[in-house]
């Protein structure tokens, strides 16, 4: 055991916090989706790290499911972004206030 599992978890935490900062700072919907990808990858690093730690393929199965969910999320998210922002001049999620009461 050369690199402890805690190092992988710390890296995963750093990547998750980076993604959170991106979700909080960005107003461009495309950049929001990119930051969400960072957070999903942080989860994958932790899952595969645990899979290695306990020598169990379940963690890798879970990580592959997360990748499928990420692919589906990107398809729907980009489709929504194109459908909503095609006719607008600004690429900004703050513009989406049509449901505001």
């Amino acid at each position, binding site marked *: *055991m*050369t*690199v*402890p599992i*805690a*190092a*992988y*978890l*710390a*890296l995963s*935490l*750093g*990547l*998750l916090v*980076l*993604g*959170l*900062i*991106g979700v*909080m700072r*960005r*107003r*461009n919907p*495309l*950049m929001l*989706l*990119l*930051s969400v*990808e*960072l957070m999903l*990858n942080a989860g*994958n690093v932790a899952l*595969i*790290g645990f*899979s*290695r730690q306990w*020598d169990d*393929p379940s963690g*890798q*199965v879970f*990580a*592959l499911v997360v*990748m*499928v*969910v990420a*692919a*589906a999320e*990107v*398809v*729907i998210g*980009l*489709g929504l*972004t*194109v*459908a909503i*922002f095609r006719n607008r*001049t600004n*690429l*900004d999620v*703050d513009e989406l206030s049509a449901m505001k009461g």
Partner: protein
Amino acid sequence: MASTTHRCWGTGRCRVGEQVLFAVAAIGTLGFGVGVVFFKDAFRAAVSLIGTLLSVALLFIALLAPFAAAIQVIVYAGAIVVMFLFVIAYLGDRGALPGPDRLDRWQVFGWLGLIGLGMFGTVAILDSTAGPARPAPDTTDVGSPASIGDAFLSSHLLAFEVTSLVLLVAAVGAVVLAKGAVQGEGGR
């Protein structure tokens, strides 16, 4: 030669290998991740995401998960980022709304939550014990496609079926959204 390299992993004969790989991949992951979050240009952020994803694939290799690393490169760097680049090219370079963020006054709660999460995670990692030593990998071989497929089709069959449903729903949703966009431009 190949078997020698394989036996070398995890048995401590090349102890430095995993550390070097981890250091390179960690620097790449966090460095390109900072690029994703802080680049103004959407195109540069997307290309920076490719760097992060490839570094994460290196981490998977360091964790003896070569199948997950291959899927990471093919699905993430090969498909998802390319779709991002297509949409960025399609929507073009547009600015944000002038003025501050609409949720600006709530942002302090977000930052407090972020700092709390970081502190909690750090304490949890520092507080945790290392656990039992990882067994040598060449006895069980958890990262091979065979063992992953075995786990998928035996104990995680429900997750496998749900995966197919999720992909079907995503495909149908993309078609419906694209149809609406085409109709919005005057086509059928």
